Protein backbone atom coordinates (compact mmCIF):
# COMPACT_ATOMS: atom_id res chain seq x y z
CA UNK A 1 0.00 0.00 0.00
CA UNK A 2 1.53 3.27 -1.06
CA UNK A 3 -0.87 5.79 0.44
CA UNK A 4 -1.69 5.40 4.07
CA UNK A 5 -5.25 6.06 5.03
CA UNK A 6 -5.64 9.19 7.12
CA UNK A 7 -8.59 8.68 9.44
CA UNK A 8 -10.10 10.47 12.40
CA UNK A 9 -9.34 8.92 15.79
CA UNK A 10 -12.97 7.76 16.01
CA UNK A 11 -12.75 6.00 12.63
CA UNK A 12 -9.38 4.44 13.47
CA UNK A 13 -10.61 3.12 16.83
CA UNK A 14 -13.71 1.68 15.14
CA UNK A 15 -11.35 -0.51 13.11
CA UNK A 16 -10.08 -2.34 16.23
CA UNK A 17 -12.28 -5.43 16.70
CA UNK A 18 -13.21 -6.73 20.14
CA UNK A 19 -11.01 -9.66 21.14
CA UNK A 20 -7.99 -8.42 19.12
CA UNK A 21 -4.40 -8.98 20.18
CA UNK A 22 -3.18 -5.40 20.47
CA UNK A 23 0.27 -4.02 21.21
CA UNK A 24 0.62 -0.40 22.33
CA UNK A 25 3.78 1.65 21.97
CA UNK A 26 5.48 3.89 24.50
CA UNK A 27 7.16 3.66 27.88
CA UNK A 28 7.54 5.64 31.09
CA UNK A 29 6.06 9.08 30.61
CA UNK A 30 6.82 9.08 26.87
CA UNK A 31 4.81 8.56 23.65
CA UNK A 32 1.98 6.38 24.85
CA UNK A 33 -1.07 6.81 22.57
CA UNK A 34 -3.40 8.05 25.31
CA UNK A 35 -6.04 9.73 23.10
CA UNK A 36 -6.55 6.41 21.31
CA UNK A 37 -6.95 4.60 24.66
CA UNK A 38 -9.63 7.13 25.67
CA UNK A 39 -11.41 6.64 22.34
CA UNK A 40 -11.30 2.83 22.68
CA UNK A 41 -12.93 3.12 26.10
CA UNK A 42 -15.59 5.51 24.73
CA UNK A 43 -16.39 2.98 22.02
CA UNK A 44 -16.73 0.23 24.64
CA UNK A 45 -14.06 -2.13 23.30
CA UNK A 46 -14.15 -5.56 24.94
CA UNK A 47 -11.84 -8.51 25.51
CA UNK A 48 -8.70 -6.86 24.17
CA UNK A 49 -5.62 -9.02 24.70
CA UNK A 50 -2.62 -6.77 25.31
CA UNK A 51 0.78 -7.95 24.16
CA UNK A 52 2.90 -5.46 26.05
CA UNK A 53 6.33 -4.27 26.99
CA UNK A 54 6.11 -1.41 29.51
CA UNK A 55 3.34 0.91 28.34
CA UNK A 56 1.95 1.26 31.85
CA UNK A 57 -0.26 4.33 31.57
CA UNK A 58 -1.96 3.25 28.35
CA UNK A 59 -2.57 -0.25 29.69
CA UNK A 60 -3.74 0.95 33.10
CA UNK A 61 -6.26 3.29 31.49
CA UNK A 62 -7.53 0.61 29.11
CA UNK A 63 -7.83 -1.93 31.95
CA UNK A 64 -9.57 0.70 34.09
CA UNK A 65 -11.97 1.30 31.19
CA UNK A 66 -12.97 -2.37 31.23
CA UNK A 67 -11.60 -3.14 27.75
CA UNK A 68 -9.01 -5.79 28.59
CA UNK A 69 -9.24 -9.56 29.02
CA UNK A 70 -5.58 -10.60 29.22
CA UNK A 71 -2.18 -8.99 29.51
CA UNK A 72 1.24 -10.27 28.53
CA UNK A 73 3.71 -7.81 29.99
CA UNK A 74 7.15 -7.00 31.30
CA UNK A 75 6.19 -4.18 33.66
CA UNK A 76 3.35 -1.80 34.37
CA UNK A 77 4.87 0.51 36.97
CA UNK A 78 4.32 4.24 37.22
CA UNK A 79 7.89 4.66 38.52
CA UNK A 80 9.16 6.97 41.21
CA UNK A 81 6.69 9.77 41.16
CA UNK A 82 3.17 8.44 41.01
CA UNK A 83 3.52 4.89 42.32
CA UNK A 84 1.37 1.89 41.47
CA UNK A 85 -0.69 1.27 38.34
CA UNK A 86 -3.73 0.58 40.49
CA UNK A 87 -6.30 -0.29 37.83
CA UNK A 88 -4.04 -2.98 36.43
CA UNK A 89 -2.92 -4.28 39.86
CA UNK A 90 -6.48 -4.42 41.22
CA UNK A 91 -7.78 -6.19 38.12
CA UNK A 92 -5.13 -8.89 38.56
CA UNK A 93 -5.78 -9.16 42.32
CA UNK A 94 -9.53 -9.53 41.64
CA UNK A 95 -8.95 -12.12 38.92
CA UNK A 96 -10.49 -9.95 36.20
CA UNK A 97 -7.45 -9.97 33.94
CA UNK A 98 -5.13 -12.87 33.10
CA UNK A 99 -1.40 -12.12 33.17
CA UNK A 100 1.77 -13.59 31.73
CA UNK A 101 5.05 -12.01 32.86
CA UNK A 102 8.34 -11.66 30.99
CA UNK A 103 11.39 -9.41 31.29
CA UNK A 104 11.70 -6.31 29.11
CA UNK A 105 14.53 -7.73 27.05
CA UNK A 106 12.61 -10.98 26.53
CA UNK A 107 9.54 -9.14 25.25
CA UNK A 108 11.66 -6.86 23.04
CA UNK A 109 13.39 -9.95 21.62
CA UNK A 110 10.02 -11.60 20.96
CA UNK A 111 8.87 -8.50 19.05
CA UNK A 112 12.16 -8.33 17.14
CA UNK A 113 11.66 -11.93 16.01
CA UNK A 114 8.14 -11.05 14.88
CA UNK A 115 9.47 -8.01 13.04
CA UNK A 116 12.13 -10.15 11.30
CA UNK A 117 9.60 -12.73 10.14
CA UNK A 118 11.16 -15.40 12.37
CA UNK A 119 9.23 -17.91 14.50
CA UNK A 120 11.31 -17.60 17.69
CA UNK A 121 14.13 -15.78 19.45
CA UNK A 122 16.98 -16.84 21.78
CA UNK A 123 17.84 -15.01 25.02
CA UNK A 124 19.97 -15.36 28.16
CA UNK A 125 17.37 -13.63 30.37
CA UNK A 126 14.93 -15.09 32.90
CA UNK A 127 17.07 -18.11 33.86
CA UNK A 128 16.62 -19.28 37.46
CA UNK A 129 13.70 -16.90 37.99
CA UNK A 130 9.99 -17.44 38.57
CA UNK A 131 9.30 -15.60 35.31
CA UNK A 132 10.48 -18.70 33.51
CA UNK A 133 9.09 -21.14 36.08
CA UNK A 134 5.54 -19.85 35.59
CA UNK A 135 5.65 -20.36 31.82
CA UNK A 136 4.76 -23.84 30.51
CA UNK A 137 7.97 -25.43 29.20
CA UNK A 138 7.71 -26.63 25.62
CA UNK A 139 4.78 -24.31 24.93
CA UNK A 140 6.01 -20.84 25.92
CA UNK A 141 9.74 -21.51 26.20
CA UNK A 142 12.34 -24.18 25.40
CA UNK A 143 15.90 -24.55 26.72
CA UNK A 144 18.20 -25.56 23.92
CA UNK A 145 21.90 -26.08 23.35
CA UNK A 146 23.17 -24.04 20.42
CA UNK A 147 23.85 -26.48 17.52
CA UNK A 148 27.04 -24.57 16.65
CA UNK A 149 28.66 -23.71 20.00
CA UNK A 150 26.82 -25.91 22.50
CA UNK A 151 25.96 -22.87 24.63
CA UNK A 152 22.56 -23.17 26.30
CA UNK A 153 19.98 -20.56 25.29
CA UNK A 154 16.33 -19.96 26.10
CA UNK A 155 14.01 -19.92 23.10
CA UNK A 156 10.85 -17.82 23.16
CA UNK A 157 8.17 -17.62 20.48
CA UNK A 158 7.96 -14.51 18.28
CA UNK A 159 5.35 -11.90 19.25
CA UNK A 160 2.90 -11.29 16.41
CA UNK A 161 0.07 -8.95 17.42
CA UNK A 162 -2.98 -8.27 15.25
CA UNK A 163 -2.72 -4.52 15.64
CA UNK A 164 -0.03 -2.10 16.84
CA UNK A 165 -1.23 1.26 18.13
CA UNK A 166 1.72 3.63 18.23
CA UNK A 167 2.39 7.29 18.89
CA UNK A 168 5.04 9.33 17.08
CA UNK A 169 5.67 12.99 16.30
CA UNK A 170 5.09 13.44 12.58
CA UNK A 171 4.52 11.84 9.20
CA UNK A 172 4.06 12.86 5.60
CA UNK A 173 0.86 12.30 3.61
CA UNK A 174 2.10 8.85 2.54
CA UNK A 175 2.67 7.74 6.13
CA UNK A 176 6.45 7.90 6.33
CA UNK A 177 6.63 8.10 10.09
CA UNK A 178 9.20 9.98 12.14
CA UNK A 179 9.94 9.59 15.83
CA UNK A 180 12.12 11.95 17.86
CA UNK A 181 13.77 10.43 20.93
CA UNK A 182 14.58 6.87 21.93
CA UNK A 183 12.45 4.38 20.00
CA UNK A 184 11.88 2.06 22.99
CA UNK A 185 10.24 -1.01 21.42
CA UNK A 186 7.91 0.90 19.09
CA UNK A 187 9.67 -0.01 15.83
CA UNK A 188 9.75 -3.75 16.64
CA UNK A 189 6.14 -3.75 17.92
CA UNK A 190 4.93 -2.06 14.73
CA UNK A 191 6.92 -4.24 12.32
CA UNK A 192 5.74 -7.40 14.10
CA UNK A 193 2.05 -6.46 13.85
CA UNK A 194 -0.32 -7.39 11.05
CA UNK A 195 -1.70 -3.84 11.01
CA UNK A 196 -0.35 -0.50 12.30
CA UNK A 197 -2.35 2.49 13.53
CA UNK A 198 -0.06 5.49 14.05
CA UNK A 199 -1.10 8.69 15.81
CA UNK A 200 1.02 11.80 15.10
CA UNK A 201 1.09 15.44 16.11
CA UNK A 202 1.25 16.82 12.58
CA UNK A 203 1.59 16.11 8.89
CA UNK A 204 4.69 17.59 7.29
CA UNK A 205 5.72 17.86 3.63
CA UNK A 206 7.70 14.96 2.20
CA UNK A 207 10.71 17.30 1.86
CA UNK A 208 10.84 17.69 5.66
CA UNK A 209 11.09 13.90 6.01
CA UNK A 210 13.72 13.80 3.27
CA UNK A 211 15.77 16.47 5.04
CA UNK A 212 16.13 14.23 8.14
CA UNK A 213 15.78 10.61 7.00
CA UNK A 214 17.51 9.13 10.08
CA UNK A 215 14.44 10.05 12.17
CA UNK A 216 12.15 7.85 10.04
CA UNK A 217 10.94 4.98 12.20
CA UNK A 218 8.70 3.27 9.66
CA UNK A 219 8.47 3.57 5.91
CA UNK A 220 5.03 4.40 4.53
CA UNK A 221 4.01 0.83 3.65
CA UNK A 222 4.08 -0.22 7.32
CA UNK A 223 1.59 2.47 8.33
CA UNK A 224 -1.92 1.26 7.51
CA UNK A 225 -3.82 3.97 9.35
CA UNK A 226 -2.63 7.45 10.23
CA UNK A 227 -4.37 9.73 12.73
CA UNK A 228 -3.31 13.36 13.02
CA UNK A 229 -4.16 14.88 16.37
CA UNK A 230 -2.11 17.44 18.36
CA UNK A 231 -1.36 16.74 22.04
CA UNK A 232 -2.75 13.23 21.57
CA UNK A 233 -0.17 11.66 23.90
CA UNK A 234 -1.29 13.88 26.81
CA UNK A 235 -0.62 13.40 29.76
CA UNK A 236 2.51 11.73 28.31
CA UNK A 237 5.41 13.68 26.76
CA UNK A 238 6.18 13.94 23.06
CA UNK A 239 9.84 14.92 22.88
CA UNK A 240 10.40 18.09 20.88
CA UNK A 241 6.68 18.95 21.06
CA UNK A 242 5.52 18.93 24.69
CA UNK A 243 6.36 17.76 28.21
CA UNK A 244 4.42 15.29 30.34
CA UNK A 245 1.70 16.75 32.56
CA UNK A 246 2.75 15.89 36.10
CA UNK A 247 -0.30 17.62 37.58
CA UNK A 248 -2.63 15.42 35.54
CA UNK A 249 -0.63 12.27 36.31
CA UNK A 250 -1.24 12.94 40.01
CA UNK A 251 -4.95 13.52 39.26
CA UNK A 252 -4.96 10.19 37.45
CA UNK A 253 -3.27 8.16 40.18
CA UNK A 254 -5.27 9.79 42.99
CA UNK A 255 -8.47 9.06 41.04
CA UNK A 256 -7.57 5.38 40.73
CA UNK A 257 -7.63 4.88 44.53
CA UNK A 258 -11.33 3.99 44.86
CA UNK A 259 -13.96 2.69 42.39
CA UNK A 260 -16.01 5.87 42.94
CA UNK A 261 -13.16 8.29 42.27
CA UNK A 262 -12.10 6.25 39.24
CA UNK A 263 -15.63 6.40 37.83
CA UNK A 264 -15.43 10.14 38.36
CA UNK A 265 -12.20 10.28 36.35
CA UNK A 266 -13.66 8.30 33.46
CA UNK A 267 -16.78 10.48 33.41
CA UNK A 268 -14.82 13.73 33.50
CA UNK A 269 -12.01 12.96 31.07
CA UNK A 270 -13.16 10.04 28.90
CA UNK A 271 -16.96 9.90 28.55
CA UNK A 272 -18.03 13.53 28.92
CA UNK A 273 -15.71 15.27 26.41
CA UNK A 274 -17.32 15.12 22.96
CA UNK A 275 -13.89 14.92 21.33
CA UNK A 276 -10.13 15.24 21.97
CA UNK A 277 -10.26 19.06 21.82
CA UNK A 278 -12.87 19.19 24.55
CA UNK A 279 -10.68 16.81 26.59
CA UNK A 280 -7.83 19.30 26.24
CA UNK A 281 -10.14 22.07 27.53
CA UNK A 282 -10.94 19.95 30.58
CA UNK A 283 -7.30 19.31 31.48
CA UNK A 284 -6.44 23.00 31.39
CA UNK A 285 -6.99 24.29 27.87
CA UNK A 286 -4.68 26.77 26.21
CA UNK A 287 -3.00 27.73 29.49
CA UNK A 288 -1.93 24.12 30.03
CA UNK A 289 -0.92 23.68 26.39
CA UNK A 290 1.39 26.69 26.66
CA UNK A 291 2.92 25.35 29.90
CA UNK A 292 3.62 21.95 28.38
CA UNK A 293 4.81 23.20 25.00
CA UNK A 294 8.45 22.23 24.51
CA UNK A 295 11.31 24.65 24.79
CA UNK A 296 12.95 24.41 21.34
CA UNK A 297 16.41 23.90 22.84
CA UNK A 298 15.56 21.42 25.60
CA UNK A 299 12.86 19.54 23.69
CA UNK A 300 10.60 19.50 26.76
Amino acid at each position, binding site marked *: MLNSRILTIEEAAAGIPDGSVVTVGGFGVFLQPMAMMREMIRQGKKDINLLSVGEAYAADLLVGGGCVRSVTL*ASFGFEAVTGRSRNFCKAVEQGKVEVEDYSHF*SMASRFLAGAMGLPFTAVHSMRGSDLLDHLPEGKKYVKMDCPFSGEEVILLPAAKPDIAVIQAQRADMDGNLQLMGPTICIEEQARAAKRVIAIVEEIVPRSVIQANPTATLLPSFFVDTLVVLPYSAHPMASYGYYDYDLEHLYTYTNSSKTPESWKGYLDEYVYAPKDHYEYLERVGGLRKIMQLRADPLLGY
Partner: protein
Amino acid sequence: METIQPVTFTYDEIMLCVASEQIRDREVALIGTGLPMLAATLAKQVHAPRAVMIYESGLVDTNPVEVPVSVADPRIMFGTTTFSSLYKTLGLLQRGVVDVGFLGGAEVDQFGNLNATAIGQYEHPKIRLPGSGGANDIASMADRVVILMKHEKRRFPSKVGYITSPGFLEGGNSRKEAGLKGGGPAVLISNLAVMDFEPVSHRMRVRSIHPGITREQVQDATGFDLLWAEDLTTTPEPTQFQLDIIRRLDPNGIFLKGE
Protein backbone atom coordinates in the same frame (compact mmCIF):
# COMPACT_ATOMS: atom_id res chain seq x y z
CA MET B 1 33.84 33.17 67.52
CA GLU B 2 32.64 31.39 64.41
CA THR B 3 31.41 27.85 65.00
CA ILE B 4 31.62 25.15 62.36
CA GLN B 5 28.20 23.57 61.83
CA PRO B 6 28.23 19.74 61.77
CA VAL B 7 27.08 18.16 58.52
CA THR B 8 23.49 16.96 58.91
CA PHE B 9 21.85 14.52 56.56
CA THR B 10 18.94 12.09 56.25
CA TYR B 11 19.22 8.31 55.84
CA ASP B 12 17.88 8.62 52.30
CA GLU B 13 20.76 10.96 51.53
CA ILE B 14 23.42 8.62 52.94
CA MET B 15 21.87 5.76 50.95
CA LEU B 16 22.01 7.86 47.83
CA CYS B 17 25.65 8.88 48.35
CA VAL B 18 26.78 5.27 48.91
CA ALA B 19 24.80 4.24 45.81
CA SER B 20 26.37 6.93 43.66
CA GLU B 21 29.86 5.82 44.78
CA GLN B 22 29.20 2.35 43.30
CA ILE B 23 29.57 3.89 39.83
CA ARG B 24 33.25 4.28 39.07
CA ASP B 25 34.60 6.69 36.51
CA ARG B 26 34.56 5.39 32.89
CA GLU B 27 32.20 2.56 33.78
CA VAL B 28 29.04 1.67 31.86
CA ALA B 29 26.06 1.77 34.21
CA LEU B 30 22.48 0.70 33.57
CA ILE B 31 20.20 2.95 35.59
CA GLY B 32 16.76 1.86 36.80
CA THR B 33 13.93 4.08 37.92
CA GLY B 34 13.72 5.85 41.29
CA LEU B 35 16.69 6.68 43.52
CA PRO B 36 19.26 5.24 41.05
CA MET B 37 18.40 8.07 38.62
CA LEU B 38 19.40 10.60 41.27
CA ALA B 39 22.46 8.53 42.29
CA ALA B 40 23.64 8.41 38.67
CA THR B 41 23.23 12.15 38.24
CA LEU B 42 25.16 12.71 41.48
CA ALA B 43 27.97 10.33 40.43
CA LYS B 44 28.38 12.16 37.15
CA GLN B 45 28.72 15.51 38.91
CA VAL B 46 30.99 14.39 41.78
CA HIS B 47 33.43 11.58 41.00
CA ALA B 48 32.53 9.81 37.75
CA PRO B 49 32.24 12.46 35.00
CA ARG B 50 33.17 10.00 32.26
CA ALA B 51 30.86 7.18 33.37
CA VAL B 52 28.34 6.26 30.68
CA MET B 53 24.78 6.07 31.97
CA ILE B 54 22.30 3.90 30.10
CA TYR B 55 18.52 3.85 30.39
CA GLU B 56 16.53 0.94 28.99
CA SER B 57 14.15 3.21 27.07
CA GLY B 58 17.01 3.51 24.58
CA LEU B 59 19.23 6.26 25.95
CA VAL B 60 23.00 5.97 26.09
CA ASP B 61 25.34 8.48 27.73
CA THR B 62 22.82 10.80 29.32
CA ASN B 63 23.85 14.18 30.70
CA PRO B 64 20.75 15.69 32.29
CA VAL B 65 20.58 19.19 33.72
CA GLU B 66 17.46 18.29 35.71
CA VAL B 67 16.63 15.02 37.45
CA PRO B 68 14.23 12.76 35.53
CA VAL B 69 11.11 11.22 37.07
CA SER B 70 11.02 8.37 34.54
CA VAL B 71 13.52 6.28 32.57
CA ALA B 72 11.83 7.75 29.48
CA ASP B 73 11.75 11.36 30.72
CA PRO B 74 12.61 14.03 28.13
CA ARG B 75 15.01 15.40 30.78
CA ILE B 76 17.41 12.56 29.94
CA MET B 77 16.76 12.88 26.20
CA PHE B 78 18.16 16.41 26.12
CA GLY B 79 21.95 16.18 26.20
CA THR B 80 22.23 12.45 25.53
CA THR B 81 24.65 11.27 22.87
CA THR B 82 22.60 8.33 21.55
CA PHE B 83 18.96 7.66 20.82
CA SER B 84 18.57 3.91 20.61
CA SER B 85 16.00 1.26 21.54
CA LEU B 86 15.05 -1.02 24.39
CA TYR B 87 16.36 -4.06 22.54
CA LYS B 88 19.70 -2.39 21.90
CA THR B 89 20.23 -0.92 25.37
CA LEU B 90 19.24 -4.03 27.33
CA GLY B 91 21.07 -6.00 24.65
CA LEU B 92 24.25 -4.38 25.94
CA LEU B 93 23.80 -6.52 29.06
CA GLN B 94 23.67 -9.69 27.01
CA ARG B 95 26.68 -8.51 25.00
CA GLY B 96 28.53 -8.28 28.34
CA VAL B 97 29.54 -4.61 28.34
CA VAL B 98 27.54 -3.34 31.32
CA ASP B 99 29.70 -2.98 34.45
CA VAL B 100 27.03 -2.13 36.96
CA GLY B 101 23.24 -2.14 37.16
CA PHE B 102 20.86 -0.88 39.83
CA LEU B 103 17.81 -2.66 41.23
CA GLY B 104 15.13 -2.30 43.84
CA GLY B 105 12.02 -4.28 44.66
CA ALA B 106 9.31 -4.96 47.18
CA GLU B 107 11.24 -7.84 48.81
CA VAL B 108 14.82 -9.07 48.99
CA ASP B 109 15.91 -12.32 50.62
CA GLN B 110 19.11 -13.58 52.29
CA PHE B 111 20.59 -14.56 48.89
CA GLY B 112 19.75 -11.26 47.18
CA ASN B 113 16.82 -12.56 45.15
CA LEU B 114 14.30 -9.79 44.47
CA ASN B 115 10.53 -9.82 44.13
CA ALA B 116 8.87 -7.07 42.08
CA THR B 117 5.99 -9.13 40.69
CA ALA B 118 3.47 -10.36 43.26
CA ILE B 119 2.89 -10.85 47.00
CA GLY B 120 0.98 -14.08 47.58
CA GLN B 121 0.21 -16.67 44.93
CA TYR B 122 1.26 -15.47 41.45
CA GLU B 123 -2.00 -16.38 39.69
CA HIS B 124 -4.19 -14.87 42.44
CA PRO B 125 -1.93 -12.39 44.24
CA LYS B 126 -2.75 -10.56 47.44
CA ILE B 127 -0.82 -7.61 46.03
CA ARG B 128 0.13 -7.35 42.38
CA LEU B 129 3.34 -5.36 41.80
CA PRO B 130 4.57 -3.74 38.56
CA GLY B 131 6.61 -6.72 37.31
CA SER B 132 10.15 -7.17 36.08
CA GLY B 133 10.70 -4.56 33.42
CA GLY B 134 14.43 -4.62 32.78
CA ALA B 135 15.18 -5.75 36.34
CA ASN B 136 15.45 -9.46 35.54
CA ASP B 137 17.74 -8.67 32.60
CA ILE B 138 20.00 -6.51 34.76
CA ALA B 139 20.07 -9.10 37.57
CA SER B 140 20.80 -11.88 35.09
CA MET B 141 23.50 -10.24 33.02
CA ALA B 142 25.20 -7.16 34.57
CA ASP B 143 28.73 -7.66 35.93
CA ARG B 144 27.77 -6.17 39.29
CA VAL B 145 24.33 -5.50 40.68
CA VAL B 146 23.65 -2.82 43.28
CA ILE B 147 20.40 -3.19 45.23
CA LEU B 148 18.67 -0.30 46.98
CA MET B 149 16.05 -1.20 49.59
CA LYS B 150 14.16 0.33 52.48
CA HIS B 151 15.14 -1.80 55.48
CA GLU B 152 12.00 -3.36 56.99
CA LYS B 153 11.35 -6.89 58.27
CA ARG B 154 8.53 -7.55 55.79
CA ARG B 155 10.78 -6.44 52.92
CA PHE B 156 13.64 -8.73 54.07
CA PRO B 157 12.10 -12.25 54.30
CA SER B 158 14.40 -15.30 54.39
CA LYS B 159 12.90 -16.38 51.04
CA VAL B 160 11.01 -14.17 48.58
CA GLY B 161 7.61 -15.40 47.42
CA TYR B 162 8.48 -14.89 43.76
CA ILE B 163 11.92 -14.45 42.19
CA THR B 164 11.59 -11.65 39.64
CA SER B 165 15.32 -10.89 39.59
CA PRO B 166 17.74 -13.67 40.46
CA GLY B 167 20.36 -13.03 43.10
CA PHE B 168 22.31 -16.05 44.32
CA LEU B 169 19.14 -18.22 44.15
CA GLU B 170 19.57 -20.91 46.87
CA GLY B 171 23.06 -19.69 47.77
CA GLY B 172 26.35 -21.53 47.27
CA ASN B 173 26.98 -22.30 43.60
CA SER B 174 23.31 -22.32 42.56
CA ARG B 175 23.52 -19.09 40.58
CA LYS B 176 26.37 -20.38 38.47
CA GLU B 177 24.69 -23.76 38.01
CA ALA B 178 21.55 -22.05 36.69
CA GLY B 179 23.71 -20.65 33.88
CA LEU B 180 23.35 -16.99 34.81
CA LYS B 181 25.90 -14.82 33.01
CA GLY B 182 26.38 -11.82 35.29
CA GLY B 183 28.14 -11.64 38.65
CA GLY B 184 25.01 -11.13 40.73
CA PRO B 185 24.37 -8.74 43.61
CA ALA B 186 27.57 -7.05 44.78
CA VAL B 187 26.18 -4.54 47.24
CA LEU B 188 22.88 -3.93 48.99
CA ILE B 189 22.39 -0.43 50.37
CA SER B 190 19.53 0.19 52.80
CA ASN B 191 18.60 3.16 54.93
CA LEU B 192 20.28 1.37 57.88
CA ALA B 193 23.39 -0.37 56.55
CA VAL B 194 25.54 -1.47 53.62
CA MET B 195 25.65 -5.20 52.91
CA ASP B 196 27.33 -7.62 50.55
CA PHE B 197 27.09 -11.39 50.04
CA GLU B 198 29.62 -13.71 51.67
CA PRO B 199 31.64 -15.21 48.78
CA VAL B 200 31.07 -18.93 49.56
CA SER B 201 27.58 -19.24 51.05
CA HIS B 202 26.39 -16.06 49.27
CA ARG B 203 24.40 -15.14 52.36
CA MET B 204 23.78 -11.47 53.11
CA ARG B 205 26.54 -9.91 55.23
CA VAL B 206 26.65 -6.49 56.85
CA ARG B 207 29.76 -4.47 55.89
CA SER B 208 28.95 -1.14 57.51
CA ILE B 209 26.23 0.43 59.63
CA HIS B 210 25.07 3.98 59.04
CA PRO B 211 26.03 6.55 61.71
CA GLY B 212 23.67 6.49 64.70
CA ILE B 213 22.22 3.05 63.85
CA THR B 214 22.89 0.01 66.08
CA ARG B 215 23.59 -3.60 65.16
CA GLU B 216 20.36 -4.60 66.93
CA GLN B 217 18.30 -2.17 64.85
CA VAL B 218 19.66 -3.68 61.62
CA GLN B 219 19.01 -7.27 62.74
CA ASP B 220 15.54 -6.41 64.07
CA ALA B 221 14.58 -4.97 60.69
CA THR B 222 15.63 -8.19 58.93
CA GLY B 223 13.61 -11.41 58.64
CA PHE B 224 16.64 -13.75 58.78
CA ASP B 225 20.01 -13.98 60.57
CA LEU B 226 22.52 -11.62 59.03
CA LEU B 227 26.22 -12.37 58.74
CA TRP B 228 28.56 -9.66 60.02
CA ALA B 229 31.87 -8.68 58.47
CA GLU B 230 34.87 -9.09 60.75
CA ASP B 231 35.94 -5.55 59.86
CA LEU B 232 32.46 -4.09 60.38
CA THR B 233 32.63 -0.30 60.12
CA THR B 234 30.47 2.79 60.23
CA THR B 235 29.33 4.03 56.81
CA PRO B 236 31.17 7.27 55.93
CA GLU B 237 29.01 10.36 56.21
CA PRO B 238 28.06 12.22 53.03
CA THR B 239 30.20 15.26 52.32
CA GLN B 240 28.74 18.73 52.27
CA PHE B 241 29.64 18.86 48.56
CA GLN B 242 27.52 15.76 47.84
CA LEU B 243 24.66 17.06 49.96
CA ASP B 244 24.67 20.45 48.22
CA ILE B 245 24.38 18.75 44.84
CA ILE B 246 21.64 16.36 45.96
CA ARG B 247 19.54 19.16 47.39
CA ARG B 248 19.99 21.21 44.25
CA LEU B 249 19.03 18.24 42.05
CA ASP B 250 15.90 17.38 44.03
CA PRO B 251 14.73 20.66 45.52
CA ASN B 252 11.09 19.54 45.71
CA GLY B 253 11.84 16.27 47.47
CA ILE B 254 10.39 14.07 44.72
CA PHE B 255 12.85 11.29 45.56
CA LEU B 256 14.05 12.33 49.00
CA LYS B 257 11.15 12.64 51.34
CA GLY B 258 13.25 13.70 54.32
CA GLU B 259 13.47 10.27 56.00
